């Protein structure tokens, strides 16, 4: 049965008429056409489908689009600012934070969520937070290094890095 769903995705309002069973990941990819968000495990375990819902990291593969009606969604396409890569994205490039790249949108979203909550995470805090984002190329050290570098850069840019 169809359902009216309103979502603000990366700052743009969308009014959708979609089946109640539409998953958020499918809504983002097929109804809205933003294919940066990937679906991999489909059971909320791997982190590839991570998006921010009202600022909180969610697994879009086990979220009904109808359930987050009225929310603001941030996907990987909404991370760059004014055409410039976000410092997290740049750090993933500079520090080899990805190999095949399929987990990367979720990794970047998770890193953004982490640094918003905890701008100066320790290595253990990064590991604990990123534990739910799997990389089958096993590029975990590159990912850790990228996030640590991004944190440092963002902290300096924020003027609190001394």
């Amino acid at each position, binding site marked *: *049965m169809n359902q009216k769903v309103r979502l603000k995705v990366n700052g743009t309002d969308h009014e959708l008429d979609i089946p109640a*069973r539409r998953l958020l990941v499918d809504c983002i990819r097929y109804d809205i056409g933003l294919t940066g968000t990937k679906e991999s495990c489909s059971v*909320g*375990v791997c982190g590839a489908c991570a998006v921010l819902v009202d600022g909180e990291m969610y*697994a879009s593969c*086990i979220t*009904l689009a109808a359930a987050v*009606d009225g929310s603001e969604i941030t996907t990987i396409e909404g991370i760059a600012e004014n055409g410039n890569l976000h410092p997290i994205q740049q750090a993933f490039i500079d520090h080899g934070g990805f190999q095949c790249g399929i987990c990367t949108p979720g990794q970047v979203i998770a890193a953004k969520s982490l640094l918003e909550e905890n701008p100066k995470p320790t290595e253990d805090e990064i590991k604990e937070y990123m*534990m*739910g984002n799997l990389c089958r190329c096993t590029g975990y050290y590159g990912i850790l290094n990228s996030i640590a570098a991004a944190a440092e850069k963002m902290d300096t840019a924020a003027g609190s890095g001394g």
Partner: protein
Amino acid sequence: MIDFEYHAPTSLDQVFELLEKHGDDARLMAGGTALVIQMKQRLSQPGHVIGLRKVGDLNTIEWTTGGLRIGALCTQRQIEQSILIGEDLPLLADTFRKVATPRIRNMATIGGGLVNGDPNQDPPPALIALGASAVMTSKSSERVVAVEDLFIDYYETDVQPGEILTSVLVPKAPAGSGSVYLKFLPRTADDYGTVCVAAVVSKEQDGTCKDIRIVLGAAGVTPIRAKESEDALRGKPLTDENIRAAAALVKDAVDPLEDFRGSAEYKTDMAEVFARRAVEQAMALIPAGT
């Protein structure tokens, strides 16, 4: 996923109306982390899904005369990060921190987890060890059920037709008590435990065990309170020998399901080991001078 009609009530009264109207064909959805997967796998095929996200007033945490009242829609992450819980009931904060991943904890709620009745979950053993109860609200009445009595069988709970779990009440931890939640994770950090044990222990001045609760998760079709082990220690000196003897009794209390995390025999052995460690570690956390 089978097609269904989605409802987004904004008040409990609307929820009760929908439950009355659609009965067994309706499922309530809080965070949806369990239900959406069950629907994808067609283990659950409701004709109506009642989303609770827009129902207000069910996501607060506050001390009341009946204990700490945790709204059913509080997310696991909210509980893990609550300053109130961190200070007054550190066992709960620690237990919720051990659930799955931050992403799942952002979505999953305390109430949704309890009524899902999955025996592998982390919060139930800790809540039972703390003597928590669940407030079940229906259109015309309210009843309070001990979390211990909420679980009937595998994925089967005491929730009655027309009822919704609205909050969880957790009493103050006993004075001079130590508590711990141990999760045996031989696979990955985000997994369910192979076995889990929550223990709350308090001591008399002379060092004997004043009271104790030992509750196991992932050790049977429901969370299991190891009452014989508790009885073996209550009023007795907390010696190494007594603790070992009490932990050995856990093997008779559990009845684990064999799965990819281990055979029933292995989990039974680990239940004893982790029960002993839980009691030892909870004891070590009893504040000095008590």
